[in-house]
């Protein structure tokens, strides 16, 4: 590390990383387009210009992304010269950039808007017509390119070259005719396309699935973790106020996913938004499932557990560490067996992020001492049990809906699930919150813990599994409260 002065403050800077990193790491804002901490630096956009003084030489305006910190360097990111140079740069960028803000998805999180606002670059001098280009160029299933908005930062080109390591985009032609292109209009491929929409500093690259879905300032955003595989990429869940999850976006995490996430996880918002949720509790009376108060449902579970020996708890691999802990205690109290469903690896494994293991909390549950078992084995074990409690998001889907449906009526099946369960063995089902509706912890394949956050309100009558288990404990005879029931 070397000591440099930034805006009057002496800070430590890593001399092997560009100056812009030293600024950002020390909470000093320096604008950037072509620079991205996850990609190699280029120094082409020229927006990150700061004034640098070294030794006796007069201060010079330099691009921070291609300047290495040197001991004793004096940096001023707010000098008049630095601001003037940035303002000039913005005027050049805004010359051809269309005034699309009212119809552009990026508005509200656009670096061009933000820096133009910061630098006070409100009016341009250009009397020239803007160059007309393709505004809705499909780059495949995931991305739409608006060539007019592109400021040629080349982040998207570098992303494919450096991250999935297979070039898919290029800058074609040159100079003022430059256009981001694929080869012969071939669509983009691969599981990492969505990242270029995040990377694009403006609204040139947008997600087809997010297009016109929401204004970003109406999104409630919270840090969470992706649950679609055991990588547990750090993500941000973004929910439209009063409505659905609109976006998952990656959060930077050096230890897990860098700056990226895969498309499979990114577009798994369907699970979070699925309709047909199980609300409250439903208890089987004869052959009909009747909507009942939750407490009645919990009492039914309690009675079943108390009356039997050898109950079986089957957990979803989506259960959090906290839920696993609570279910483990419950199982111990009732001397029940406990296991989590461990489906086979899928074919989505790649060289980058997706592990191919669909269990987001395999390691977390295993570390608690809960063993995993295959769906096939577990359905056999359930069929052989007197009482079985299946708990957690998507547990029935993973066991196999058909297999669960076919369970013999000799089993008393109790389910804590997101969606109604169809099974003649079913005695009672209670609705639970899904992975964006309740907080908790999952542990990824490397042992790194990731938080889940309650970003979206659960549907009416639906509570987190932990709440149900707390109430169940309260209603059990080993606690004083339940004596009255």
């Amino acid at each position: 590390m070397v000591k440099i002065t930034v805006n009057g403050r002496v800070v430590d800077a890593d001399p092997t990383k560009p100056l812009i990193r030293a600024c950002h790491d020390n909470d000093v804002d320096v604008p950037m387009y072509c620079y991205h901490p996850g990609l190699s630096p280029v120094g082409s956009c020229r927006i990150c210009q700061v004034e640098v003084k070294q030794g006796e030489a007069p201060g010079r305006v330099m691009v921070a992304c291609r300047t290495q910190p040197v001991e004793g360097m004096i940096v001023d990111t707010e000098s008049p010269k630095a601001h003037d140079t940035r303002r000039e740069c913005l005027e050049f960028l805004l010359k051809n950039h269309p005034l699309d803000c009212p119809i552009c998805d990026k508005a509200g999180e656009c670096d061009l808007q933000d820096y133009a606002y910061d630098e006070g670059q409100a009016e341009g001098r250009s009397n020239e017509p803007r160059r007309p280009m393709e505004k809705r160029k499909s780059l495949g299933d995931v991305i739409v390119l608006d060539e007019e908005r592109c400021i040629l930062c080349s982040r998207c080109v570098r992303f494919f070259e450096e991250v999935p390591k297979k070039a898919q985009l290029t800058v074609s032609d040159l100079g003022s005719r430059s256009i981001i292109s694929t080869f012969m209009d071939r669509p983009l491929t691969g599981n990492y396309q969505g990242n270029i929409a995040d990377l694009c500093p403006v609204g040139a690259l947008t997600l087809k699935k997010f297009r016109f879905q929401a204004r970003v300032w109406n999104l409630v955003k919270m840090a969470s973790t992706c649950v679609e595989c055991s990588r547990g990429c750090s993500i941000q869940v973004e929910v439209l106020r009063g409505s659905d999850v609109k976006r998952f976006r990656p959060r930077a995490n050096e230890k897990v996913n860098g700056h990226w996430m895969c498309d499979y996880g990114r577009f798994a918002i369907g699970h979070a938004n699925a309709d047909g949720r199980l609300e409250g509790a439903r208890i089987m009376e004869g052959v009909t499932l009747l909507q009942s108060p939750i407490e009645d449902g919990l009492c039914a579970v309690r009675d079943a557990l108390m009356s039997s020996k050898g109950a079986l708890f089957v957990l979803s691999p989506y259960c959090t560490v906290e839920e696993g802990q609570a279910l483990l205690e419950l199982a111990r109290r009732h001397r029940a067996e406990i296991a989590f469903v461990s489906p086979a690896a899928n074919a989505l494994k790649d060289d980058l992020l997706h592990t191919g293991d669909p269990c987001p909390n395999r390691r977390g549950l295993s570390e608690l001492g809960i063993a995993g078992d295959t769906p096939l084995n577990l359905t056999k074990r359930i069929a052989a049990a007197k009482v079985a409690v299946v708990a957690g998001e998507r547990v029935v889907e993973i066991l196999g809906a058909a297999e669960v449906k076919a369970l013999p009526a000799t089993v008393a099946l109790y389910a804590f699930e997101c969606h109604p369960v169809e099974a003649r063995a079913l005695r009672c089902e209670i609705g639970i919150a899904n992975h964006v509706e309740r907080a908790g912890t999952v542990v990824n394949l490397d042992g790194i813990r990731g938080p889940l956050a309650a970003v979206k309100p659960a549907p009416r009558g639906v509570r987190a599994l932990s709440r149900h288990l707390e109430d169940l404990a309260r209603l059990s005879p080993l606690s004083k409260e339940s004596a009255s029931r």
Partner: protein
Amino acid sequence: MSLPQKLTAEFDELVKNYPERRAALIVALHRCQEELGGWISPQTMEDLGTYFGLEPVEVFGVASFYPMFNLRPVGKHVVSICHNISCDLRGAQDIIAKACEVTGAPLGGTSKDGKWTVKHVECQGACANAPMIDLDGVYHEDLTIEKVAKILGAVR
């Protein structure tokens, strides 16, 4: 499809000149353009990608950067006319007009009979002998309107 053996044999020798094979790409593009119809087709770009271990999009990015590479078919004869300052000062616009008239090609395009493409280009280094045309790779300099009509008219 792949590149003709004649070309790959050439390229096999060419790449030996450089510590990294890719350096031969631009000379290879020239050779492909010369041998494969005067332009660089998408198939050629794919084939060059295979030869050099590059994605086709990377070859496309390189080929589209350089004005000498035609990424669309051209006429049987290509006339490139400098319209930069020394030539402009000595009547390049008149030469361009005459060339278009004689060949029937629109400026920047190809004649309907497919015989001619006329392009305007930047400084070709013939400034002391301006104005000029480059006809199928040969410079014709110190031109007048009459001379250019004669030169183009003589092409069969």
